[in-house]
Each structure stands twice: as structure tokens, then as C-alpha cells.
């Protein structure tokens, strides 16, 4: 299999950057997309060129470190999938594949396809926890949690923090990411004590980081590898108003 990659190359955050073309052959349909980039990098090394910097770690769709814009879609042409789960069988032989880094003011490019997502960590820092020290927990079954509540919390908690929601959003809104975490913790009885602080703290930080506001295009839930529903954002809005009134 043979394709042409057009890949964003940018040597550091100060560099302007541009798309560069690479014709790559010797690929197979069973290769993952990232393996195809590995293959390209090996060829670049043999030619004495610097490799393309791109992110990955677990390569099984759970760590959230990989993620690039492929042919105009976050994580590539399929819905609800990470970049590492994408395989070359999803592309036509001979096709051109445009690869760009996530674009958002809050996610500056570090090099080539690698961006800085530390803004997410700082949102987490501002309340995405239950303040209980190690050793202070009551017996696990002491507070029953109905299955539907536990399941709904799990649905929201599944977020892998990849940033596809921000990348695909025309406003670079981090609403889905922030909402998922808020709703996960605020639904659980253990999270109630700090519920209002959490909502205000995390949403304030979301603003501080320069993310845009949500206009409900719905693109985020389509690109989210965990399929986290956009209703989470509505729920966050509800919790926000509630926190402003009662918090």
C-alpha cells in the first residue's frame, strides 16, 4: 500500500510551520496509522533527516496521549475512536492524508504534531477530586450507590483526556472535558460535599486557560473516543447555575 502524507512540520513553538509532503510505500492495511508514521520515521532516519515528532503511548486507546487531525477530523475519519486505533485499511491505496496538530490557543504546538495539553491538568487541579486523605475512608459498602448512578458516573468518568473535543470544536471549548469530570464526581454521594466549589473552580480555570464557550455544535461527542454525550455539558450548565445560586 502506498500513500502520500502531508504532515505539519514545525520546529519548536516559535517556528511558523508548514505542511510537508512525504510519499510512503511498503505499508500494509493491517498497520495502524501510527505504525505507518513509525515506518515513515524509519525511512527519514535512514535518509539522515529528523523524525516527525508525534505523540502516543499505550496504543490501545486508553491513555489519551495520541491525537492528531487527520484529513480534517480529530483522530481521523471514524467516529469515537483514538488515532492509535485507526488502521491503514481505512484509507484508499494512493490517497493523500493530511495530518495536523490539534489547534487551540490553549494547546500551543511544541514541535510538529506535539501540543501542550497541560491546561487540562490545571483544570483538574482546580477541583476534580474528593478531598479525602489516604486512610480516612469509611467502609466501601457503607454508602450504597444505585447502579444507574454508578453507571452514569462511569459514563462520564471514561474521559481519556485526549483533547479531541477541544481540537474539533470551532470555539476550542473544553466544555465536554470539564463537564465529564464535574458530572462524574458530583453525581456520586462522596462528591457532594464539594460539589459547588468543584463546579466553580473548574469552570473558572477553563476560562482562565483561554478555552472558548460551547455553542452545541455536537462535534465533540462525535469525535470523543469514549463517546461521552454532549448532554454532559447541559448538565454542567445546570450544576453551574445551581452552584451560583446555592454555592
Amino acid at each position, binding site marked *: 500500500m502506498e500513500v502520500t502524507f502531508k504532515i505539519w512540520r514545525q520546529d519548536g513553538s516559535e517556528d511558523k510551520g508548514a505542511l510537508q509532503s512525504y510519499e510512503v510505500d511498503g505499508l500494509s492495511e493491517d498497520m495502524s496509522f501510527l505504525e505507518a508514521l513509525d515506518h515513515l520515521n524509519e525511512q527519514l532516519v535512514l535518509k539522515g533527516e529528523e523524525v516527525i515528532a508525534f505523540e502516543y503511548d499505550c496504543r490501545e486507546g486508553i491513555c489519551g496521549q495520541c491525537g492528531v487531525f487527520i484529513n*480534517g477530523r480529530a483522530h481521523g475519519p471514524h467516529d469515537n475512536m483514538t488515532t492509535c486505533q485507526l488502521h491503514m485499511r481505512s484509507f484508499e491505496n494512493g490517497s493523500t492524508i493530511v495530518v495536523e496538530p490539534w489547534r487551540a490557543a*490553549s494547546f500551543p504546538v511544541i514541535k510538529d504534531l506535539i501540543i501542550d495539553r497541560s491546561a487540562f491538568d490545571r483544570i483538574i487541579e482546580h477541583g476534580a477530586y474528593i478531598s479525602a486523605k489516604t486512610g480516612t475512608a469509611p467502609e466501601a459498602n457503607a454508602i450504597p450507590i444505585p447502579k444507574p448512578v454508578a453507571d452514569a458516573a462511569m459514563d462520564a468518568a471514561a474521559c481519556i483526556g485526549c483533547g479531541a473535543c477541544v481540537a474539533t470544536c*470551532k470555539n476550542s471549548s473544553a466544555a465536554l472535558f470539564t463537564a465529564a469530570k464535574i458530572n462524574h464526581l458530583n453525581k456520586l454521594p462522596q462528591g457532594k460535599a464539594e460539589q459547588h466549589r468543584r463546579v466553580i473552580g473548574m*469552570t473558572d480555570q477553563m476560562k482562565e486557560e483561554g478555552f*472558548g464557550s460551547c455553542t*452545541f*455544535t455536537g*462535534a465533540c461527542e462525535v469525535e470523543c473516543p469514549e463517546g461521552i454525550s454532549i448532554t454532559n455539558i*447541559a448538565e454542567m450548565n445546570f450544576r453551574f*447555575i445551581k452552584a451560583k445560586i446555592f454555592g
Partner: protein
Amino acid sequence: MRINPLFFRKTILAGTGLFLCIFLIVHLSANCILLLPEDMAREMYNAYSKTLRDSPIIKAVAYLLYLSILFHVIYAILITIGNRKSKPQKYEVNNARENSTWTSQNMGLIGTMILLFIIVHLANFWARIKLGMGESPGIDAMGNIDVYQVTYSLFQNIYYVIFYTVLMIPLGLHLNHGLKSGFMTLGFYHKNGLRTLAKVSLIYAAIMAIGFGIIPFIVYFK
């Protein structure tokens, strides 16, 4: 209390938007009078206009309406500016159509078209009747200002009719997305409720767009 602009602006936008949605229902109901036989329509339409002009409550509501439009526009602009700052660099290739509707991606553009319409619309009616600009309207048999005649004569011009009708398409798109989005912005998150809301939005938007869009045509051919 500190204000988080991400939420505050959207809340204003949603609040004013939903208020305008209610207004449109009233407006369309009134427009339906135009479909009646001419004499009856003239009398009722002009009487209705007079009631509106004379009621102090309606007056207050009217100011609320003007403010709503104004705030809706201002906050939409603020939100758009803020959001553009959040995404300063665009993608070379972007297939947004595969993950979202064109409408949801272009509410600003659609909104601008509607704003343009509103300006023309107000110039045609509101400026003439309330501000007395242009040729002054006549008086009907009951002694009311003949608003009906103003409307009727305007819709004898095919270009106006087409302008009015065509711009009801962006109105429908705007309402369909805006109604859903407005409710979600205000924190409505019930899953089944949202499914129903999506249907209601579609039906509402269709009725408004078709209703407002078809009346000028009917009047034209009357």
C-alpha cells in the same frame, strides 16, 4: 459574585433567544390574520395593531423585545470574538460537516442574515408606522392606522416577497439549532426530554419558517 463570561454570555444569549422564540409565535399568529378575506383582514389587523400600540403592558414588552434583540446581537458578537481568540489558527483541511450540522457551525453567519432581514423589516414597517418616516400610512374605516395597507402594498412587490421568503430559510435553521441549544445552555439535560426537545425544535422552526415565508406569497397572489 465573580462572573464567568463563558457562562454569563451564553446565558444571556439563550435567555434572549428563547424570549424571541415566544415573540415569534405571537407575531406569526398575527400574520395569520392576513390570510382572511380582505375586508375582515384589514379591520382585524388594524384593530390588533392599535391594541398593541395602546397597551402599556405591550409597550413594556416591546421595549424588552428591542433590548432582547440588541443584547442577543451584542452577546453573539462578544461570544464570537471570544471564541475566535480561542482558535486563532484554523486547520488546513477541516471536515466539520462529518461531525456536525452546517447550521451549528455557522450560527453567526445565519444570525447576521437574520439581522439584515430585521433591519429591512423594521425599516419597512416600524420606521413608517411608529417613527412616521416615509410616506405616511392611511386611515381605515374604523379610524385606525391602515397597517394592513402598508403590508399589503409591500407584498405586491415580487422582489420584497422573494426577499422575505428566502430569508425565512436562515430563520428556520437558526431557530432549529437555537431552541435546542438555548435550553441546554440553561441547564436542561434530561436525556429523553432532549430527544423530545430536538423534535419540538424542528417542528417549531419549520412552522415559523414556512409560516412567515408563505404568507407574503399568499398575499401577493391574493
